[in-house]
């Protein structure tokens, strides 16, 4: 239940329990909104809420102050139950300036709580945001519960006695807003206070100022009775375990380190900076004590080529990129396919084509991952479905790469790369054993001889006496690895390279179906849409609709029971943040009609959109 529905029965300043809330902090790039949101998240995590977050920041590093282009926002959803997405529409919006208001107000729920910093609503800022009249005065916000606060003024007042310049004082404004939101949602201040004291341990006056302002925000609400109702979200019933909040790119990086440790192979990352994948390079560059080598290459091509060189030498080789970079790597990826060397290619997708929407999300590289290379060049493609799932997906990508001696494409996207959720931490001993055996015995060695089960060729690394051999991009004769233009051999090698990937299906676990395993409608997804799909389908099912959902981690090859699963449902709905790429693959492979639901707006699906589509297909009433 959302706050406004509960609010109707609430008496003044009464504490109301709600099962979830969505809060969005929006302000100028310099207003510290990411930090404010992160603090709200940490505090809620430690209260035991389930949560999911979604940051939104401008593509420009220093967009002009006060403009729409400069708005930075952070949305967080907290709940007392298991949630899957950062929420569709906010229940509460904090707008630090007119531009932030303009950009987000359309998303705020009717009767939602709106907190504005009135100090910033002066003519110049209103004009920059494109407001002809002041929305605080013209009645355009009548549908919301507006709290007007002179946040800047009150921040300065709280710091009157402190010897800080005006600029430094301004910088703690966000803490005032955070204090207000903590009051509204009955959160304690101690987590943030402790964090501030730790963060500014060397500058105690800054810590003190921020704590003062944080408390001032809380006190302002309490003394002036700003909100009719305050809300409370109980802890969620999460599975027992140790948790931390994690973003997708971070989980992916840690997953790669884990794969390195579990395989005993040193980790090598060849990468060229690109949004939204750069954090992987940054994070891995910090893991030198884990023996991780990072190579910031001169371009995307070199990043992939260097990874191939490292793989030839026996490293766990990785390259990270986003769509345009994947395009540049295509030729080198084929070299890895041809030389049958393990490389993990992490593609953190963003809006395309071309430079597209660097900071916004999309799933439109699926077909590029599948087919964007010359010749017959199949490789395994797997996708992460949530921020924490990036950890497991990275380990699985490494496992496939070294077991089958193939390059593997791991698909993530901007939404889960920058979004966060609680991650139930695994026990180290439960992580898969990825140990590999390099070939050392020269007796009977041939570079393209094959493992019976996986068809993998031996990994024979330079430095091993007696195994000197040559690999390369020219077609190789099976077994001997000699250059071969023989027609029958090319057919055989093409078949073998395809068969190697196809055999992975034998060990993919059976599909897990959420809901009945047969019936009227299956919602099938891949990648980051899992949260919205699961949430939407569960809501619809709670409304009595006969709908199930299933999610694909493996896209090449598909799970072997996928055809059977599809055949058990009357309708199949495939929502994707592209123009129907999985739908195309499913139709082609299984010759069955599916309903393709597409969205390319740089934003993830709303749960409600999926829910509405389910209703439409099943001919039921509209979403309540």
């Amino acid at each position, binding site marked *: 239940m959302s706050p406004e529905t509960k609010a109707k029965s609430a008496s003044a300043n009464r504490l109301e329990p709600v099962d979830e809330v969505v809060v969005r902090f929006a302000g100028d790039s310099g207003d510290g909104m990411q930090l404010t949101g992160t603090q709200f998240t940490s505090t809620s995590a430690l209260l035991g809420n389930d949560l999911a977050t979604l940051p939104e920041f401008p593509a420009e590093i220093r967009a002009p102050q006060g403009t729409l282009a400069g708005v930075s926002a952070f949305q967080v959803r907290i709940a007392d139950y298991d949630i899957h997405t950062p929420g569709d529409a906010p229940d509460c919006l904090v707008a630090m300036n007119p531009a932030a208001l303009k950009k987000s107000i359309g998303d705020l729920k009717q009767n939602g709580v709106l907190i504005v910093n009135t100090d910033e609503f002066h003519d110049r800022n209103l004009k920059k945001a494109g407001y002809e009249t002041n929305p605080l005065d013209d009645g355009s916000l009548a549908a919301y519960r507006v709290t007007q606060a002179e946040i800047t003024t009150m921040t300065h007042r709280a710091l009157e006695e402190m010897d800080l310049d005006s600029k430094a004082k301004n910088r703690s404004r966000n803490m005032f807003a955070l204090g207000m939101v903590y009051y509204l949602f009955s959160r304690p201040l101690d987590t943030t206070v402790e964090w501030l004291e730790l963060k500014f341990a060397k500058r105690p006056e800054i810590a003190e100022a921020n704590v003062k302002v944080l408390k001032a925000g809380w006190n302002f609400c309490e003394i002036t009775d700003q909100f009719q109702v305050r809300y409370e979200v109980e802890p969620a019933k999460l599975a027992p375990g*140790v948790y931390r909040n994690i973003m997708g790119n971070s989980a992916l990086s840690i997953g790669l380190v884990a794969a390195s440790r579990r395989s005993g192979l040193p980790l090598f990352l060849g990468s060229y900076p690109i949004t939204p994948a750069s954090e992987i390079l940054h994070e891995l560059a910090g893991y030198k004590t884990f023996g991780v080598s990072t190579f910031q290459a001169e371009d995307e091509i*070199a990043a992939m080529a260097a990874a191939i060189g490292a793989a030839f030498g026996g490293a766990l080789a990785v390259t990270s990129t986003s769509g345009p970079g994947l395009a540049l790597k295509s030729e080198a990826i084929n070299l890895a396919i041809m030389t049958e060397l393990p490389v993990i290619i992490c593609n953190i997708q963003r809006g395309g084509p071309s430079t597209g929407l660097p900071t916004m999300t999309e799933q439109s590289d699926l077909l590029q991952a599948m087919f964007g290379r010359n010749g017959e060049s199949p490789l395994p493609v797997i996708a992460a479905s949530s921020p924490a799932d990036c950890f497991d997906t990275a380990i699985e990508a490494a496992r496939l790469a070294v077991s089958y001696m193939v390059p593997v494409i791991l698909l993530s996207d901007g939404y889960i790369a920058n979004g966060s959720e609680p991650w139930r931490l695994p026990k180290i001993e439960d992580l898969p054993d990825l140990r590999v055996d390099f070939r050392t015995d020269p007796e009977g060695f041939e570079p393209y001889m094959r493992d019976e089960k996986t068809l993998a060729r031996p990994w024979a690394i330079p430095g091993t006496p007696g195994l000197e051999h040559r690999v390369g991009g020219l077609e190789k004769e099976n077994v001997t690895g000699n250059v071969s233009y023989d027609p029958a051999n090319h057919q055989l090698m093409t078949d073998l390279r395809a068969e190697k990937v196809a055999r992975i299906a034998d060990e993919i676990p059976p599909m897990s179906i959420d809901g009945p395993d047969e019936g009227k409608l299956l919602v099938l997804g891949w990648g980051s849409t899992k949260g919205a799909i699961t949430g939407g389908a569960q809501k619809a099912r709670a409304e009595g609709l006969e709908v199930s959902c299933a999610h694909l981690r493996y896209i090449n090859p598909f799970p072997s029971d996928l055809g059977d699963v599809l055949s058990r449902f009357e309708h199949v709905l495939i929502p994707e943040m592209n123009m129907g790429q999985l739908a195309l693959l499913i139709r082609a492979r299984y010759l069955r009609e599916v309903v393709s639901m597409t969205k390319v707006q740089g934003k993830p699906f709303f749960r409600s959109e999926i829910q509405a589509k389910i209703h439409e297909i099943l001919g039921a009433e509209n979403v309540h």
Partner: protein
Amino acid sequence: MSTELPVLTKKDFQSDQEVRWCPGCGDYAILSCVQTIFPQLGIPKEKFVVVSGIGCSSRFPYYMDTYGFHGIHGRAPAIASGLKATRPDLEVWIATGDGDAMSIGGNHLIHTLRRNMDVKILMFNNRIYGLTKGQYSPTSELGKVTKSTPVGSVDYPFNPLSLALGAGATFVARGVDIMQPHLRDLLTRAHAHTGSAFVEIYQNCNIFNDKAFEYMSAKQVRADQTVEVLHGEPLVFGKEKDKGIRLKGTALEVIHFADGHGPEDCLVWDETDPNPALAFMMAQLGPPDFPTPIGVMRNVALPSYDYGLVHQLEEEIESKGSGKLEDLIYSGELWTVGEGGQVTRGKAVADPG
């Protein structure tokens, strides 16, 4: 490991593959040269890796009985960089051509040189595209008539030595395919250098650009048309050792000893000069007014990229200890959900299950 290495011979480095360059190609001489010096370097055979790109010269690895990687067009330096960065114990050599290294792979070449990656780059310069059957290359002379430039090329060529020097290469040399003893010496010195060694090798393509280097390498003109650059020696050349090169003002000029000059007037070459300006001037020399310089233009000592990378890892591990996966995963703000759903901060002592 035993300190005694098996005695290796040229034969140990000849693979069982049939060499398929055109008869008379300069590549044969370079292959023979490399196969001759490899056994003399005191390195176990299994430690050699030869990496190449695409083109005639890039077939090189197939003919060497070492670990070999025949890459894709222009990318050999990048492949070799990833290998050397993770396996500094290996002796990594690159065989490339003027099209492979200077055109499609120009970016990788300059950045590999800039980083001083410890790889040895042999650039076979035949001033033509051979494998694609005779188009002009980025080192072809202006006005070159080829299949793709029927009335002559209108773009200016790269001077490979200048390019390498401009990229900050720490070892820059030029040799000629048919001048075997000299070339063997250059390659041995390239090996001894720590960091990137760039060796341009003039190589005759007798099919598409025959006799391209006759003007300086033909026996009857060689002594007068080349000047061998030797560290610590004056720049003297000519059949009768009767000419030299001196620095006059900001330019180099040829002096004739018959005019009263002597070797003492010549520029004494210092390959270790940290300032590459003179090397750059030398690289510009050539016909019609100057002999073509051959030998080591530059040889300066700088730590290599792979050394720096490995050193950083070792230092971090030494000062902070080897990373523990458990600590990495269980870091940041943790909270524990107990069996009864109670939430506590941090990692609870009880087994989280």
